[in-house]
């Protein structure tokens, strides 16, 4: 194993063992909570679109809104400082503290303040900085970094916190229960807040029309932080500004549901500072609040730190719409297994964090964990502002690839892999990105290629050079491709007799490796009276795109469109077996093809079961299909679910008399090439273990396992040591399974 891959694998293994269990329990709880909570909303999709358009508009008008906020806050009696970067912000905040002769600053949770590392800056001046959010305080006591943007100590179990508090504070009675730990923290922090000179908060939103900060909390510490001391410093990224108070409504409804799965958090503070609430001065305990004449001091420190440049960057701009709810992290299979500490980054971790880290800390910081996004796309549906997070990850990966100067094997690879990338590309990425070429070679030379690839010295060499984990069985190439088989056999339903004509897309995997599912699809379509064609169409570009090779994927998209355009024009339907390729046609091609081309191909293309469903709904005769076969355990594909297409598979199977149980995990963990990479093999298996568990219960263990995605079937076979098929093979008229 290369040193870098080995270090990464060790780090991941360590986190899987130490922080994984607590992270898994918490994120799965948040994620399920989100599903349950948004299900109660009648107009969830409308709310998301509304939220999206408010952020789009706000970022578009940001310079104007920045001026408006400054005017409003100053008219209210506060001060606004626009900081260019972290050092600039910290300089200003240190000055405020020094002018107030502040000995203690109490803080409510703010990721932006983590980005600034303002605690260190103030502590260097001798100021006592206290985190009052219970999770943040645990981390402050433990001297650790947050592992989650909303629940920072998500990686710590109750037992660990009890051990920490008992050793750090040595209470009279050892603390044990969550109740005892919470009350202990409340008491300690209550004392610290009493004597604080400055309260520092973040802001989830800032309204330009009123100068109001919206703070989303549940503990009440942000309320105390803002109201007890006479000086309030709020730090917030410039992207937090929205035009009006009324714009807050959809965010109030979405943010708690999306993040921790609460319909609403305990407190949504709408503070228009300097606030009217009197200062709580415990040194003057007997003066009534109503009799005080306070002159509160308020400083709004708005942080640029790369954000205004992100606004000018067509690809990173969407990151600024992020409301930091954490839905993307909670729904991420990899995050569920290892949490934010594996995702690295200087401040932000998981999901959208790639965009934030690239924008505020630079590409080196984003590079650490960029690979952990497998592009499964489950976060796209979860994001309340509809950010295409996998695309941001892909763009950052592409930029990293281009910046990497290590081109050692360039000469060799340029011969072998006809991609469009610059020389510095990582060997492992280049190999997987050019999988189509590899598959062609493998197929031509099969079965010899399979024997060679299966030899121990060869596996060992592959592991050492390109990092393909030797614990993974490799796919075996078929000598006779699907297209060759079909050309020899010919279409069995003549065009003249058919109501519909379909082009079955010969994706790389179906054409060269799992030819059986392609044959099954042909027979099913023909059994339903469809004239089938399988023309020569190149790979969709999914493989290179997943390695961040955007230019190569772009060229593939053009070639796919060129090969299919005539069929689309002739009114033929494009039927796709592999969901990750269909997702290219229906999602990513929007970024790679001209708008009209994208729309035409997208509209003409169908998931194979969506198509079968449509045929059956339109009175196609199902009698030739295999019906009432074995009981099934079905795992749909992550990208298929994001497209909302998995329901057709289960509907068709049930209509045909099958007893179907479904998995409800976000992703199988294989995600194309991810699970083959030696540095990620164990993480991939851990993510997959949640799926394996669901298919190993009393209810499911004897069922036939079926899955829509190629890599899902590979993963299921590795995890369960049972055969896994594509469901089209089950309803194939020639099916003998079960």
């Amino acid at each position, binding site marked *: 194993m290369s040193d870098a891959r080995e270090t990464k694998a060790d780090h991941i293994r360590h986190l899987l063992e130490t922080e994984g269990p607590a992270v898994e329990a918490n994120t799965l709880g948040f994620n399920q909570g989100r599903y349950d909570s948004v299900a109660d909303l009648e107009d969830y999709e409308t709310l998301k679109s509304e939220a999206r358009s408010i952020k789009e508009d706000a970022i578009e008008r940001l310079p104007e809104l920045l001026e408006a906020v400054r005017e409003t806050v100053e008219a209210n009696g506060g001060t606004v400082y626009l900081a260019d970067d972290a050092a600039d912000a910290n300089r200003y905040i240190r000055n405020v503290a020094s002018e107030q002769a502040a000995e203690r600053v109490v803080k409510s949770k703010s990721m932006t303040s983590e980005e600034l590392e303002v605690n260190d800056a103030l502590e260097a001046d001798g100021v006592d900085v206290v985190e009052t959010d219970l999770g943040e305080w645990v981390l402050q006591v433990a001297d650790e970094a947050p592992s989650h943007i909303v629940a920072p100590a998500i990686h710590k179990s109750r037992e660990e916190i009890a051990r920490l508090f008992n050793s750090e504070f040595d209470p009279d009675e050892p603390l044990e229960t969550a109740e005892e730990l919470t009350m202990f923290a409340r008491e300690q922090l209550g004392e610290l807040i009493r004597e604080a000179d400055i309260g520092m908060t973040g802001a989830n939103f800032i309204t330009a029309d009123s100068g109001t900060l919206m703070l989303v909390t*549940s503990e009440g510490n942000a309320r105390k932080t803002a109201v007890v001391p006479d000086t309030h410093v709020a730090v917030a990224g410039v992207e937090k500004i929205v035009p009006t*108070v009324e714009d807050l409504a959809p965010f109030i409804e979405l943010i708690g549901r999306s993040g921790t799965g609460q319909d609403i958090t305990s407190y949504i503070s709408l503070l228009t500072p300097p606030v009217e609430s009197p200062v709580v001065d415990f040194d003057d305990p007997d003066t009534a609040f109503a009799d005080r004449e306070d002159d509160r001091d308020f400083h709004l420190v708005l942080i640029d730190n790369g954000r205004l440049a992100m606004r000018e960057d067509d690809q990173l701009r969407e990151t600024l719409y992020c409301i930091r709810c954490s839905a993307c992290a909670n729904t991420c299979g990899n995050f569920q297994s290892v949490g934010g500490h594996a995702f690295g980054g200087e401040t932000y971790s998981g999901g959208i964090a790639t965009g934030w880290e690239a924008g505020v800390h630079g590409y080196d910081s984003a590079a650490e964990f960029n690979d952990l996004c497998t592009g499964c796309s489950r976060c796209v549906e979860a994001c309340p502002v509809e950010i295409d997070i996998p695309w941001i990850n892909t763009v950052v990966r592409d930029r990293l690839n281009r910046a990497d100067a290590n081109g050692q094997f360039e000469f060799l690879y340029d011969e072998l892999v006809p991609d469009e990338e610059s020389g510095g590309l990582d060997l492992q990425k280049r190999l997987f990105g050019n999988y189509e070429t590899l598959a062609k070679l493998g197929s031509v030379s099969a079965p010899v290629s399979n024997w060679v690839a299966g030899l121990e010295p060869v596996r060992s060499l592959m592991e050492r050079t390109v990092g393909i984990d030797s614990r993974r069985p490799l796919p075996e190439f078929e000598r006779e491709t699907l297209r060759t088989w079909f050309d020899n056999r010919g279409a069995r339903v003549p065009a003249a007799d058919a109501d519909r004509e379909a082009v079955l897309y010969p994706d790389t995997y179906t054409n060269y490796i799992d030819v059986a599912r392609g044959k099954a699809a042909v027979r099913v379509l023909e059994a339903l009276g469809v004239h089938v064609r399988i023309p020569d169409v190149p790979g969709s570009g999914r493989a290179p795109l997943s390695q961040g090779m955007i230019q190569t994927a772009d060229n593939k998209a053009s070639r796919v469109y060129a090969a299919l355009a005539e069929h689309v024009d002739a009114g033929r339907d494009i039927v796709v077996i592999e969901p990750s390729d269909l997702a290219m046609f229906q999602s990513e091609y929007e970024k790679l093809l001209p708008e009209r081309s994208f729309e035409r191909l997208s509209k003409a293309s169908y998931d194979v079961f969506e198509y079968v469903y449509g045929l059956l709904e339109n009175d196609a005769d199902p009698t030739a299909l295999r019906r009432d076969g074995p009981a099934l355990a079905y795992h749909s594909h992550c990208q298929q679910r994001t497209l909302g297409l998995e329901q057709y598979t289960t509907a068709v199977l049930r209509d045909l008399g099958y007893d179907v149980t479904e998995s409800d995990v976000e992703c199988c963990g294989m995600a194309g090439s991810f699970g083959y990479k030696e540095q990620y093999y164990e993480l991939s298996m851990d993510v997959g273990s949640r799926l394996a568990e669901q298919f190993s219960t009393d209810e499911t263990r004897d069922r036939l396992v079926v899955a829509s995605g190629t890599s899902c079937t590979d993963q299921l076979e590795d995890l369960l040591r049972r055969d896994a098929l594509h469901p089209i093979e089950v309803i194939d008229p020639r099916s003998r399974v079960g």
Partner: protein
Amino acid sequence: MDATPAPAVDRFRAALESLEVAVTQTTPGEFERTLRAVASEPAVGTRLPFPDVSLPEWVDDDPTPASLEAATTGVTAGSLGIADYGTVVLPARDDGSEQVSLFPDLHVAVLRRGDLVADMPTAVERLGPQLRSGASAILATGPSATADMGALVKGAHGPKDVHVIVLEDETTADGHDGEEVTADE
């Protein structure tokens, strides 16, 4: 035909019940008795800006930091209630209403039934002009809570319990709109 949506007060109660927050509907005439049953002493409060209702003498209505700290109950007025969420809108005024609703273990929020609105957009629309003229408010839904210590615990920094008293108009209480009024404790 669509089902008629449940009255706002029923949805408000149901939302709070799911958070294990008690709601008592009462009349101005019965307010003191209701409060007595709900609150514990020592209690602090801030002015209730509703006609025919005021804080009883056993509630300190001119709190200081000392009486705030000693109090086990804080009584404040809500300006709006949001039926969909069980949320009470707490104005943060110069008399210390924010502190009174925050420090004691029990917060009793007093709300007029006529101030219940159906949903979040309506509430935020009502708040817009107030915030633009410099006001602050807290949308409070249930007690303070945290899960940071490994399980859900109520009363992290703020109140451990919340009790909402909904004031009926005397006319409503006479049954003019046909809804039954119940005091649940």
